[in-house]
């Protein structure tokens, strides 16, 4: 039971707990905040996996952007502080069952992974955890340039689409602000 393992267990527990709270908490804003905790936990796990860059990007993108966005949406789409009515389907138990079955399936799948019992990483990654390699790979024609460009196009499309959808109907005519 090394320090790393302890850290992992604690983080994993927190992450999971936060996740459960996300789906369970009656107050939606709390759910959003729990979501942030859970995402931060994942970021810590990334650090444990020597993926500093991804960890930081996780924090920037999720906590800095998506979570804020979600909180905003929550605040905009309901009377503030007033959570009324049930927060889950009447048939939530069905969902629970199917989720559990899915878990079973996934675990069965994981058991098939050849490296399941692998005790630790085979080789150390590059000194900067492959950061420079990542950078070049994203702009290398023969490697990931195309997916990268597609992703950026996707982002642009999402940006424009979100604006087009979310602008109020009256603003749509007079076009702007």
């Amino acid at each position, binding site marked *: 039971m090394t320090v790393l393992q302890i850290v992992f267990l604690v983080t994993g527990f927190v992450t999971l707990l936060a996740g459960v709270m996300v789906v369970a908490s009656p107050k*939606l804003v709390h759910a*959003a905040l729990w979501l942030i905790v859970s995402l931060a936990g994942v970021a810590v796990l990334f650090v444990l996996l020597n993926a500093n860059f991804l960890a930081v990007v996780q924090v920037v993108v999720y906590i800095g952007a998506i979570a804020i966005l979600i909180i905003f949406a929550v605040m905009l789409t309901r009377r503030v502080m007033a959570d009324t009515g049930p927060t889950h389907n009447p048939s939530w138990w069905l969902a629970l069952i199917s989720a559990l079955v899915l878990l079973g399936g996934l675990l069965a799948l994981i058991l098939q992974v050849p490296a399941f019992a692998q005790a630790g990483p085979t080789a150390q990654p590059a000194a900067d955890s492959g950061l420079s390699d990542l950078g070049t790979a994203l702009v290398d024609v023969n490697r990931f340039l195309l997916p990268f460009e597609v*992703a950026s196009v996707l982002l642009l499309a999402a940006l424009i689409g979100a604006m087009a959808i979310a602008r109020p109907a009256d603003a749509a005519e007079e076009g702007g602000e």
Partner: protein
Amino acid sequence: MIPLSWYLILSALLFCVGAFGVLARRNAVGILMGIELMLNAVNLNLVAFWRYLTPGLIAGQVFTLIVFAVAASEASVGLALIISIYRRRSTVVVDEINLMKW
């Protein structure tokens, strides 16, 4: 050292929790949160496999980045949709958005 299986199991659990959220939440925003959880579970898997099996290849990290992009777009568009629905029907409870229902 931490066995690979720990990561895999954790991500599986997280994934299923997210799935439950997607299936059970009444509020559309809640469903989005569930989706985010699932995406994160996937990311965790990707990075774990990258670190444990192929530290040399960068593919795992690249996929993760792309998933980030997808998640961001999905969140923005989804929330925009939710807001516009809220403007029209003044609710974001998916059961009450039942135009498709008979």
